[in-house]
């Protein structure tokens, strides 16, 4: 096992691409180190990306944001402009683990760990975020929902690394929100998560919406039917009810130690509705 801490993205890509055997990016390490400790992964090479300056910055970019892949949750939460534009994304990222975990955990790590219960991912998917990917064959930008393909599995090729997460420019009268269900108040993995992002016109009618759910399928899912329930409405009680029903209908969960199938299906609808209510408020609409 070897440890490297390159200072450029190119160097990181070269290391990852060059090594035979298993190579892993180390961002905050809050998933990777646990997996190593519990014998689930045994990488031959660890590439720590926290010493790459470009990956440690949050930059304003064409009206949106470019968040370096090594930016921690605590740093995200401290960025006022980001919090104002995308409160749902930031609140989702800040839900991850404890204060200690927040000092280290990254959005990109949450995404690339490819857990269906990852908290920031439904919020990012709802936000229409994309991932800037660098690899031995150059760079590409893809929607975040295309990164995870199943529990613990990503579409990233050998040597590829997520450089940054990109959040688009915000239309006026937009709001987003993320809610998760956990039995305790902290330190739990989501039993269900729901992210909602919506935009209103000047009359308060919803013109665009995206709804994403976590922990109800093998990966985070985008639910267009749920979004469709909101578009064209004032996000009134009837629309919210349709949204909840559509969200529940989209679930294909499993029974596990964290919750039952029927519980997840029902609560997905409840959370989608509650998140939509918050997003609506943030967009300046009233309920």
């Amino acid at each position: 096992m070897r440890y490297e801490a390159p200072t450029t993205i190119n160097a990181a890509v070269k290391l990852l691409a060059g090594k035979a055997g298993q190579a892993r990016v180390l961002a905050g390490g809050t998933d990777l180190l646990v997996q190593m400790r519990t014998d689930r992964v045994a990488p031959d090479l660890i590439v720590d990306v926290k010493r790459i300056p470009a990956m440690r910055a949050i930059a304003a970019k064409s009206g949106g944001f470019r968040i370096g892949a090594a930016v921690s949750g605590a740093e995200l939460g401290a960025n006022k402009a980001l919090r104002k534009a995308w409160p749902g994304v930031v609140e989702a990222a800040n839900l991850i683990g404890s204060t200690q975990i927040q000092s280290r955990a990254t959005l990109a790590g949450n995404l690339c760990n490819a857990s269906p219960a990852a908290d920031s991912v439904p919020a990012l998917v709802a936000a229409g975020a994309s991932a800037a990917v660098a690899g031995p064959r150059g760079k590409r930008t893809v929607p975040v929902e295309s990164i995870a393909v199943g529990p613990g599995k990503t579409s990233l090729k050998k040597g590829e690394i997520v450089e940054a997460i990109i959040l688009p420019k915000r239309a006026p009268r937009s709001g987003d929100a993320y809610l998760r269900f956990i039995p305790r108040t902290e330190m739990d993995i989501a039993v269900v998560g729901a992210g909602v992002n919506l935009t209103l016109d000047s009359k308060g009618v919803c013109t665009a919406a995206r709804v994403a759910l976590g922990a109800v399928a093998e990966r985070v899912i985008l639910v267009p039917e749920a979004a469709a329930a909101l578009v064209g409405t004032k996000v009134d009680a009837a629309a919210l009810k349709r949204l909840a029903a559509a969200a529940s209908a989209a679930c294909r969960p499993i029974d596990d130690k964290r919750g039952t199938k029927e519980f997840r299906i029902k609560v997905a609808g409840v959370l989608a509705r509650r998140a939509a209510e918050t997003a609506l408020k943030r967009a300046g609409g009233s309920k």
Partner: protein
Amino acid sequence: MPLDSNIDPATHKFNLVGTRPLRPDGVDKVTGRAKFGADANAPGMLVGKILRSPHPHARIRSINTAKAAKLPGVKAIVTAADFKEGKRALRDVLCNVMARGKALYDGHAVAAVAATSASVARKALKLIQVDYEILPHVTDVDEAMKPGAPLLHDDMITAHVDPAPKKPSNVAARCEFGHGDPEVGFKQADVVIERSFRTEATHQGYIEPHACLASMGMDGQGELWVCTQGHYMVRNTCAALLGMDVSKLRVTASEIGGGFGGKTTVFIEPVALALSRKAGKPVKIVMSREEVFRASGPTSSSSMDVKIGVTKAGRITGALAEIRMQGGAFAGAPVELGAMSAFACYDLEHVKSVGWDVVTNRPKQAAYRAPGAPMVAFAVESVLDELARKIGMDPIELRLKNAAKEGTQSSYGPKYNRIGLRQCLEATRNHPHYTAPLGPNEGRGVAAGFWFNFGGQTCVSLNINIDGTVALAVGTPDIGGSRASMCMIAAEELGIPYDKVRAIVADTSSLGYNDISEGSRVTFSTGLATIQAARDAIGKLCARAAKTWGISPEAVVWENGHAKPSSPNAGDFAPLSLADIAKKAGNTGGPIAGHFEVNADGAGVSFAIHLADAAVDPETGRVQIKRYTVIQDAGKAVHPSYVEGQFQGGAVQGIGWALNEEYVYGKDGRLQNAGFLDYRIPVASDLPMIDTVIVEVPNPGHPYGVRGVGETSIVPPLAAIANAVSAAADVRLTELPMSPPRVLKAIDGKAAGKARR
């Protein structure tokens, strides 16, 4: 002062008892200097690691360690063959420490290695080949009792059943307590309710994993450093399992990072000693958190039926409980204590409780704070709550009408001495919490709890130093500030300042045998022995003063830290302080020390009432505790801060047990949630402040009136919270934990029922 006199704790004015001085081990613990189990190292030390069965039930056909032994850095490997199969009484302990013939649960130890580093040891474990024949398994208590269930031990014949069964089963024993005839009682009742309850196994959840450092010399003498609640128990057990003389093993108790009953037996200690003996080097073993969950001792899960009848006027006429507990792979579920405590709060004419001790393919249970009582109280106090509602009576009123008092014949046999249940109930009724308004979707629950408390074998030495300070040696590991209390008690007796006494927990070779720190016995028995040791020293101090003055020892009294002539005609001498006498000890007969050895009796039972407010989210089933108050009889609170701490800690463990903690087994018989992320103990943000009321009804069995306080506080919370949640959700919850899926299902079930009606 007559040495054996008891003061009247209700009127006596104490100098120190009842105050809140800083603890003597405090600075070490806030600066990181205190040495816990894993904090000790030895030169040339090896790292020990244990290979554990991944199967819940399997015959071990063979273990091949050849490959592992060849790995550079591996210094010793042990299996069951390295332990002596000695006395029958220890057979289960031995089989639990290292599987013999069969692995009986997921996590059961099958082999261990000692190597020069953790990474080599880990690699070595992977090279050990175990050939398992997988057998069918059972982890549920009711399933395990059924005929045809997979059998764990083919020689297990249920004890205390007449006539004895012919065939083996998973039922180790039956027990029964009570008096009168419940069936007669039910006939006298206006309302009878019978319900079934279930609780899942929970873990003590101490934050410090088991850890020890063993060092065996070639001369057969050994040293062991270990975090344990009872280092004498560790010494005796390990010596027996390794075939050593007890005198050849010296055990030192480290600071202990929580135990709650879970550190009252051995797991890794004999293994570390065996590895050290084989390797000829010190060996340290520290359990991982996963090992703690899979392979130490959680509590039992239970399945219970409770039936109680009352009159409209609120008199309980009959009570019956049938309790089934699984205690893991070996006999010993705490069902007897559960059955004994079931109705101990009440003064009943017709009462009976029956218990069944069942084995399953789970880790052997260990004691957990008031073992057996919380789950049974959950069942009994839930039924009482329902009865109170049915007859339209205030739940405290119902309990007051039936509360046990001095002279009551308890449901488990003895007659009560002076007890404080009524006082606790009244204090609850008068507490502002009891009548505070509730918010929407909130409910309030109340429940009572009882615990026996224990005394046991105890031995204390108290040495008077040359400068008038005192070295106090006790043999009960300090699991919650007991050294502070012992210093207070010694100083109180001797009449010297608190900071002149320093208490240590002596190793097994420096002091006589002491029972484990369990059963809420430490402040009671070690306190009692400390008082008597101090009085023993005072006798000697007075004799030295008498010698100095040339008068008879009977003519000397001890007052406020000084020896004085008992009356003017005894002579006219200036009082001698403890320091004065100590300074001259060399000339008056040598060192001065007090000792006391006792098998303490008269611990004095204690009672508590808990009040809980819970809010239930009707759409998700999520429960939030909004307010919580503990009212408990402490007899006499020596250090009130640590008494409150025991109340609060027990209540919060109970909150976890009630709401979210549980052992989750998969269909494959493997534990699914062996970590703190999914075994959900309460975190700070889950909780409100925990209010406490210390009731003091002195225990006649103790010179200061002290009762144990450590365990009673976990008895009422399961029921108090269940009653609160049931009120908030308007549906009775009978299974623990009341996790959100379970609560939501109950709420939805009720709604569906109404819709059908």
